[in-house]
């Protein structure tokens, strides 16, 4: 059962990472608000399904909606929040300015949720979504967890197929051109803001979906579950797996989550230092990011360029993932020709 739990969690985070990769990997926006979208998706799923709060617990809505409807509404709420944050942050801000703005947004959200109790019960959080539908499905507790893992894996597979299809589409290509050079993209007619915005909303929708599944997985949610550091792990996973490659992203999440969980599980945990394990985990993540950037910056699976024609297929077969193509000597202008300095006239 332990492994069921680990794999379920990794699969939920893989859905989140697929969404983040569209925003960061394809569109190039280093978004720090992203974990907030998972949190809102989670909160909304709770408050739409667990019924009216009983004092002293407080939260908004308190609905008794069917789970599927609640999930759809939770995703819609997340997309609405992303629409507001994205509209402000993506308009003119880029790189570190964008990152800081999104960090500010998620910090504000965090403080609001933590301190304004009537929203999502403040620091104590919400709970009570225990295995929805278990009795209807006539399952044992463990049986339910296994079925739920199956459901999450199916959703992950669907999300992967969706993202993969988008990745190879003209939309994915256009988004990458915006990432590579925004001014050139605009010069060739691309609406930069609109492209980034659409990618952002799409990514946030996947984060909301992941949040919704996360709610069912952990059955209680409070601010300590979504501290900003959590996002670092997702970024590390994308880096390790291969930014811009959906398959790599999923692989990265499984490697990082299962690797880290397992590595730190067998560590000695001295009684005098109870925070030894978590602290070491953070250090390991940092170390892993540094090592990957140094030795394999493209990740385990590198972003696959859109290869063209028969040569593309041959190249794909001859060139296993990750290996770099040799600089082509054939065709075009001989390199030596370039060495000559330009003969610029008077100027």
């Amino acid at each position, binding site marked *: 059962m332990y492994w069921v739990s680990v794999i379920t969690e990794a699969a939920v985070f893989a859905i989140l990472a697929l969404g983040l990769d569209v925003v960061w990997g394809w569109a190039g926006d280093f978004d720090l608000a992203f974990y907030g979208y998972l949190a809102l998706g989670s909160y909304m799923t709770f408050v739409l399904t667990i019924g009216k709060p009983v004092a002293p617990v407080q939260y908004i809505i308190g609905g008794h909606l069917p789970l599927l409807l609640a999930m759809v509404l939770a995703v819609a709420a997340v997309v609405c929040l992303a629409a507001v944050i994205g509209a402000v942050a993506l308009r003119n801000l880029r790189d570190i300015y964008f990152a800081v703005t999104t960090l500010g947004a998620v910090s504000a959200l965090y403080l609001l949720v933590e301190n304004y109790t009537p929203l999502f019960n403040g620091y104590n959080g919400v709970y009570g979504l225990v295995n929805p539908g278990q009795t209807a499905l006539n399952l044992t507790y463990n049986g339910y967890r296994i079925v739920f893992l199956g459901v999450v894996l199916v959703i992950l597979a669907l999300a992967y197929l969706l993202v993969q299809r988008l990745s190879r589409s003209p939309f994915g290509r256009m988004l990458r051109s915006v990432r590579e050079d925004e001014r050139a*993209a*605009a010069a060739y007619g691309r609406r*930069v803001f609109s492209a980034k915005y659409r990618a952002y909303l799409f990514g946030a929708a996947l984060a909301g979906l992941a949040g919704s599944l996360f709610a069912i997985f952990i059955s209680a949610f409070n601010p300590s579950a979504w501290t900003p550091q959590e996002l670092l792990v997702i970024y590390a996973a994308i880096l390790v797996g291969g930014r811009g490659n959906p398959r790599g992203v999923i692989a990265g999440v499984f490697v990082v989550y299962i690797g880290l969980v397992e590595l730190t599980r067998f560590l000695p945990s001295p009684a005098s230092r109870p925070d030894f394990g978590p602290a070491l985990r953070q250090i390991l993540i940092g170390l892993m990011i540094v090592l990957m950037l140094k030795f394999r910056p493209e990740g385990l699976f590198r972003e696959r360029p859109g290869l063209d024609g028969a040569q593309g297929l041959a190249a794909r077969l001859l060139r296993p993932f990750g290996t770099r*193509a040799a600089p*082509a000597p054939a065709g*075009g*202008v001989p390199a030596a*020709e*370039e060495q000559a300095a*330009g003969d610029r006239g008077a100027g």
Partner: protein
Amino acid sequence: MSPALLEIERLTKSFGGVHAVRECTFSVPEGQVAGLIGPNGAGKSTVVDLVSGFGLADSGSVTFAGQSLVGKRPDVISRLGLIRTFQTPREWRNLTVMDNVLLARRQFARESLWRSITRARRIRREEEADRAAVRAILERFQLADLKNELAVRLSGGQKRLLEFARIAAAEPRMIILDEPMGGVNPVLGARIGQAVRQFADEGRTVIVVEHNLPFIEKICDQVIVMDLGEVIAQGPFSGLRATPRVVDAYLGMDQSHE
């Protein structure tokens, strides 16, 4: 001569206290190759930015094919059929040569997120025609063998050619080239000149910002000379030597450009 495709009137732009462009007025007729020359800091690149939507003029007007371009975004201007380049080639580095040129095609409708999901197969089929056209263009610019290479791996000269391949793929009505000969050797320079001529032969209007005067003399029908943000002369290249202000500002006394 045909009526002007691009008309610039009293265009003005300051950055703080610097008057980058002052009351700049000139026009370019359809089908012509015009050279825009002048010393460094004359305001040439600022004019290019203002025309293409990458900067907002303080005053004045820019009219392209009868439509005002003032206040329009770069992507809108590009979609009207005016494509500009930048002083350094701005290729999409981590995309393939093929994708770089394919992206220059007018395929905006295909880039819808929704349709990319629901009509993936149909979009791929539609794209085949564009791919065939792009392969022919790559052939024309000697880039066909490199089509699956990432653009970042091209040499400086190949990047220049890639820029021309993108323009050819975009099929614009007007092209503004910002220093296409920067850092280019004579052999490649001849090829670039040939490409510009071919664009003109296809009926496209071209403005070339350049310091390489022999190049300008060879390919341009008329030349616009700027200095300190103002247009100081406009006309055929041969007439410039007779304009004292141009000689003082740019050509110099003993200019030999053979």
